[in-house]
């Protein structure tokens, strides 16, 4: 069995590389809490390339509008159809912002309609147990972005599993620090990332 490689999706429009430290932080958490054989560094894959099909999970974020090219859209459709898991996080944390509007539109066009995930969804029990649903982020609580604490994540459901996970909670900012600094946190805020990865690999 090959090791899990955390892949960040690179798309033509927008700032796809806005959260460069998130992959390392998630990889660190996967190594800390699970026995998953994980690669020590993440990779960047162009959403328009066939390389995305080598990865079971893709992480996509940014602040700016997301406009998929034809090849990117076709690849996302195929990726989801083949059982891939796409995690899209609004780094702009802005419910009415350009990233949210454009990313949700592109997801709808390429993968299907987004629905609210109930807070007792299997995603929140995939590894750690989050009884109240998705953990809130400091960016929600301190009033940045849209001044909202989002109760739910959204997802595109395919064959009973989440194929696309969409978050307005700005986990990209929340997890965007060097993993060595994790020791300064009373509670590790990247645990939900473990759930996301484990869910993607096991469902």
């Amino acid at each position, binding site marked *: 069995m090959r090791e899990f490689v955390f892949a960040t999706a690179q798309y033509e429009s927008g700032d796809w590389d806005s959260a460069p430290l998130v992959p*390392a932080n998630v990889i660190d958490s996967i190594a800390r809490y699970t026995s998953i054989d994980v690669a020590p560094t993440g990779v960047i894959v162009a959403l328009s390339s066939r390389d995305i099909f080598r990865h079971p999970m893709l992480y996509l974020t940014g602040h700016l509008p997301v406009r998929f090219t034809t090849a990117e859209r076709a690849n996302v459709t195929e990726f989801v159809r083949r*059982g891939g898991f796409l995690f899209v996080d609004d780094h702009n944390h802005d419910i009415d912002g*350009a990233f949210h509007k454009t990313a949700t539109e592109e997801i709808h066009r390429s993968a299907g309609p987004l629905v609210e995930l109930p807070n007792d969804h299997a995603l929140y029990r*995939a590894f750690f147990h989050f009884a109240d649903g998705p953990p809130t982020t400091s960016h929600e609580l301190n009033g940045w972005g849209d001044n909202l604490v989002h109760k739910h994540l959204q997802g595109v459901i395919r064959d009973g599993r989440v194929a696309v996970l969409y978050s307005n909670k700005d986990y990209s900012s929340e997890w965007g620090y060097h993993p060595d600094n994790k020791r300064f946190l009373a509670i590790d805020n990247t645990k939900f990332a473990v759930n996301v990865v484990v869910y993607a690999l096991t469902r």
Partner: protein
Amino acid sequence: MTARQRVRRTRALLLATIVLRALVWGAAAGVAAIAAAGLLDLLVDLPRALRGVVVPLAIVLAIAVVLAHLWRGRRARSLPATALWIEERVPSLRYALVTSLEQDDARASSLLEREVERHRWESTVLPRALSRAFIPPLIAVGLATAMIVLLPRGVVARVRAPRAGDAVDRPPIARPPAASRLTPIAVRVVPPAYTGLSAARFDEPHTIEALVGSRLELEGRGTSEGIVATVGDTRFTATGRGSRWQLALTMPAMPSPLILRDREFDRLIVLDARPDSSPVVAIVAPTRDTILRTPTGRIPIRGEARDALGLASTWLEYIVSSGQGESFRFRSGVLARRSHNGARQATLETTVVIDSLRLAPGDVVHLRLVARDRNPARDAGTGASETRVVRIARVGEYDSVAVEGAPPPEADTSAISQRMLILLTEALVRREPRLSRDTLVRESRAIGDDQSRLRRRVGEIIFSRLTGEEGAEHSHEEEERRGQMTAEELLRAAEEATEHGAGEVLDFAEGESPVVAINRPLLEAYNAMWSAATELNVGAPRRALPHMYAALAAIERARQAERVYLRGRPAAVVVDVNRARLSGKRDSLPPTSRSPRAYPSSAIPAHRFARAAELMIDDRQAAIDSLMLLRIEVLDRSPSGAAALGDVIAALREGRTVAPALARARNILAGPPRSDNGLQPWGVAW
């Protein structure tokens, strides 16, 4: 009235009778043909194509019968023939009538006229003969009409005006009460209103292809009691109308099986849902993204849109992103909205006035063309082109914005000059045997002066880099002194001039100071040029050439060094997985148990295909149903595979050989041979 006039009148009546009788016979033949076809259709289900030619054939037959009767009565056009016809029916005339028509003598003629005058055949013979002429055709018409009237309702309509969906109009003959009411059925497909398409009817469909959201109206013969239909988890109950049952449903969003049930009978129909594709929009101009130095000007936008069912409107959408880092603001809007009223194609042209967008340095404008079809659903029917991005450069980025032509780099200028000097020196060396010593020395010194000027230029470059000031070697004495220094001595002097000690600025490779690392090639060139100029000044161009070559090579190395980017990508964080595993933190959130992951597969299950193939031997209908279900599954992911399965199903239904179609379907569905390189990546089968 003379005898001739009376015969002419009789002839006219006879001709009218012949024509009328021919027409009645023709009508009888036509009606009888339709009635016979209806009767035949009642006994044997005639195909719609054959029923379609019944009426034209009936008309042809009627015309033929009319013509035949007219041909038979053609002799009535002749007066003698008419006279003979009268003589035949009135023997007492004893050919007086025929003779009177042939007689030219006036006296004899008056005698014959008087003889004919005594006989009034118009009131005796003619009515009886005419009435007898019409009785047979009228009886034939009556019989044919009676047959049509007696035929069951709908039979004549199937023959007279055959149409798709009239299968249920054909009444069964001696249909047992326990027979399935699911055959025959007719389907009327009503596309969504926004498409503007007309409704269509189908007989006995195995597959119904229709747009998602179309209304499907199924109709069959018999009562509606106990007839149900199932699509997915939704159940539909038939309603009755007269002697027929009816079902109405909406085409689902995905290909699905429609299962009809009547007591112990069932019937499977494939609902091949065709989604209304969004309009296709392409942006033709501008062809690529661009960066503007200043937020002014006009950008022409041109694009094309098309939709199979018609476009409703098009517009240009823009989003302006302002800000950087974690702080962004957005503005969006719509320009050039146009209505197309259902046109299949449209060309979109507009111009974006950059000034009107009030852009600032660093702002990014995302432009795309959007088209909407006439689908009223809120989240459907919109297509968009690729996005073109126009960015306004920040002041700090001007060096990366190729707006104005830049002069050639300094090192390039030096290298070209050094090459020219080498060429001049080489030419002088070739001419040396033919030149006097004075001429040689004069020309050699001229080249040497140019070499010295070039050396000073290189020196300026070196010192301007080190001190930020040009013209650091002005003094002739200092120049002389530097010319005799080695590269290291010159470097030390340069470092002293910049008040930096070697190795204290940056930690460079191989222990060199940055001054040495960056300037060593130019310093070598500087020294080689000095040696070359010295040799040229004493009239020894041959000895100068090696130094000149060395100078050129050093300049080349300096040019290469200029292309090294000192800035690079930030170092990627490499997680020490083992260290992380040994220091994993545990707090209040306990891990939950993990469940094994299902092994997803995109391939068609081979065993299901094989099972369906086996069923063909014993239960053909079951095999058809299995293949239809398999076809529904592959409709959206393998259209060619679905088509191949359709061929197999059609071959089974029509009793043809299925082996070739079956092999083709298996080859398509199994895909090309694949090699397995071992275990799959994490939890996924690709």
